């Protein structure tokens, strides 16, 4: 197979997070506008300078990216709508990067945002996918909690992971979240709190689950020259991958699509797992973070429980992971949950992460995972970001 082109010459800049709220009376349109404006202001870019626009959202209905152009007064010549939930960020990034390389767009704004009104989570569940409607929800209507309970149950049986192992990961993320003023969870979490939490869908308990909330995230993709001309800190793209419906033959999901593309991920970025300064996994449930730690090559399959036992996953630890607290502690703002790791990684490698800054971080791996269409997450993505220009 022909080696794909690398992503050289492309800059990713102006990360912006609109602080999350548990419930919001505002719409997805409002949240997206807030994040977009935040990134534009950060880079000194006018709305009319945007000629590429990429949107990920679950709660825009009946609108899509198309409706948003008129709603927000944008006139892009390149438009993308990314319906891939937790895998959205790397997917949006690599497509936007190709548009920049090809000259189809000069500046692409990639935004993800969702509102969370009372009952909007329940409504989203009921129309999530056809297979879910036909073959998953009629069985106890546990939503993603039930699906991930099954994966967690199988993972524990297969690899001997314990609830304490998952708990270590959650506790470390809460430590990180306490440094992030925008995180919804503000109280420290102990391993005892984790173990004794209210059961949700055995073996999943309260602190294995993310809290649905409203929020939005945005970043800009442009050429390095453009970023330099505008004098904004930026990251470069070492590599980026996406994969859908991988390993369909597996009876139950214990690995994701990353395993199919991991060699190219590191080869294109000219690095290895030991060069990664921090990892942002998609953490809707801790078992999925463990799966990513394995599938992205930080340890062998089934060894993530031992890996979290022997590593410190906090900001100042030897394996900084989900440095802003991740979704488990900062909240899951719908499709913005797919962006939280990306936006934080851009901050990290550009030295703008503030209280969550990992010292001298120059290489970050961002991983995405999304869309429980039936019994497993269908989409996976990842990208390696490197320092372009620090603040």
């Amino acid at each position, binding site marked *: 197979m022909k080696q794909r082109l690398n992503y050289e010459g492309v800059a990713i800049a102006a990360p912006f997070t609109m602080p999350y709220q548990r419930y919001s009376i505002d719409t997805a349109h409002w949240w997206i506008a807030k994040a977009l404006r935040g990134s534009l202001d950060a880079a000194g870019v006018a709305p009319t300078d945007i000629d590429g626009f990429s949107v990920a959202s679950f709660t825009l209905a009946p609108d899509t990216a198309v409706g948003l152009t008129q709603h927000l007064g944008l006139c892009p010549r390149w438009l993308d709508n990314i319906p891939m939930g937790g895998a959205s960020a790397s997917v949006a990034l690599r497509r936007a990067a190709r548009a920049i390389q090809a000259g189809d767009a000069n500046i692409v704004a990639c935004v993800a945002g969702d509102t969370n009104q009372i009952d909007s989570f329940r409504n989203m569940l009921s129309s999530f996918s056809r297979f879910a409607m036909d073959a998953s929800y009629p*069985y106890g209507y*546990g939503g993603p909690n039930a699906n991930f309970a099954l994966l967690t149950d199988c993972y524990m049986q297969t690899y001997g992971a314990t609830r304490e192992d998952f708990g270590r990961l959650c506790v470390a993320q809460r430590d990180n979240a306490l440094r992030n003023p925008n995180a919804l969870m503000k109280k420290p979490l102990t391993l005892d709190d984790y173990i004794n939490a209210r059961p949700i869908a055995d073996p999943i308990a309260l602190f294995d689950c993310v809290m649905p909330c409203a929020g939005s995230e945005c970043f800009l993709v442009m050429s390095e020259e453009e970023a330099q001309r505008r004098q904004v800190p930026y990251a470069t793209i070492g590599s980026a991958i996406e994969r859908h419906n991988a390993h369909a033959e597996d009876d139950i999901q214990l690995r994701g699509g990353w395993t199919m593309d991991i060699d190219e991920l590191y080869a294109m970025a000219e690095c290895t797992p030991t060069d990664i300064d921090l990892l942002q996994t998609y953490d809707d449930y801790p078992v999925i973070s463990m799966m990513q730690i394995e599938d992205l090559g930080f340890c062998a399959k089934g060894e993530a429980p031992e890996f979290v036992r022997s590593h410190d996953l906090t900001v100042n630890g030897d394996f900084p992971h989900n440095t802003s607290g991740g979704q488990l502690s900062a909240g899951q703002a719908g499709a913005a949950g797919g962006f939280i790791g990306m936006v934080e990684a851009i901050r990290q490698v550009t030295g703008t992460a503030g209280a969550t800054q990992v010292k001298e971080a120059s290489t970050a791996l961002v991983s995405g995972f999304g869309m429980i269409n039936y019994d497993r997450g269908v989409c996976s993505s990842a990208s390696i970001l490197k320092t372009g220009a620090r603040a």
Partner: protein
Amino acid sequence: MTDELLPPPRKDPQKRTLSPTRPPEARSRASLGLSAAAAEGRFALQVCAECNTVQYPPRDACSRCIGTDLHWQDIAATGQLLADTVIQTSTKLYFRERAPWRMGSVKLDAGPVVLCHIHSDCEKNSAVTMLNRLDASGQGVLLAIPTIRTTHMEDDPQLRALSADPRHRRILITDAWNPNTPTLANALIEAGASTVFVGESESWRPHPNRDALAAIDKVEVLPLDVTDTASVKKLAGEIGGKTDILINNARFMRPGGVLDRGDTGFAKEEMEVNYLGMMRLAQAFGPAMCARTTDGVNSAVAWVNILSVNALSNSPDYGCFSASNAAAYSLSQSLRGEFRGAGLRVMNVFVGPTDDAWYQPLPPPKVLPPAIARSLVDGLQRGLEDVWCGDVAKDVRDRWRRDPKVLEREMTNGGDGA
């Protein structure tokens, strides 16, 4: 092991009766094949005609060869439990009110992995048998049960929710005069029914079932004439709030087609009993039953019609009677739609010619009351919608499914002339 389900205590009239809630009803059209199979108690999955792949969830194209020639076929109902969970909380009221709820994933021996309900007696990683049953929304759902029977297995709440089990329930049989009534009453009591009410019209006339019914403990004979709206309403006022299963076996029949009769007298009577009788019963008993589908162990659960299989395709020897049954069958479909929102099931038992006086001129095979009783109790226990009782009923069903027009031609032979 499952705890034995005990008879419920007397209902506390001061407590609010729970409003009916239901599991999700929405399905894609492809998925309704599962419900159609569940209506008859079959475990069937989609199979690709081109590459023979068995697939699940149901699709519009084969996930192996993208062929679109897909058929529902009966499949070996065995598999292995892969993973399971107990859902403690749900945003859907039906499950929230019934939590904790066990579900999991099963690797079928036929290939696909399915998410399904899990019986509480299934052990981790054990071999399981799959049931395809209608849930309270009237949709087919899969339940894994232990392959080896366990004690009081039917009393598992998740399994019972997928049935209309007569156990601990109060049942009304509408027509004491029907030759099958004493046998039905006995079979239901044997299946655990707590009370069998039997409606009796024209109580002043002697009939052969009276002594037989009087001899059965737990049977209460009450006045009911399904052709008389006042009589139906009166009985509904007395027992409508404690009728959990209604079995409409009222039947008026005379042989003959249109030209065998000089007037519409018998036809009117057939419609009064077989069609309008069902309507009167539904108008009087339906609302109370619909309001009680979430009323605990002895909740209202099913409406049963016993119909001639010639409701599907007319038999001119009994042409007018067949027509009244076709009307009744059509009305039962309306009732299904109307009861669906409450989760009250409508089960039709289609019967071939029965072995009684009005079918005397027909040759065997004929259906005897014990066969009807077995089909009916089994159908309730398995929560079926369509039950085919006797060889003739199954034969007509199969011909009708193969080609309704061919069946009609077969049924309407004029006989060889000179």
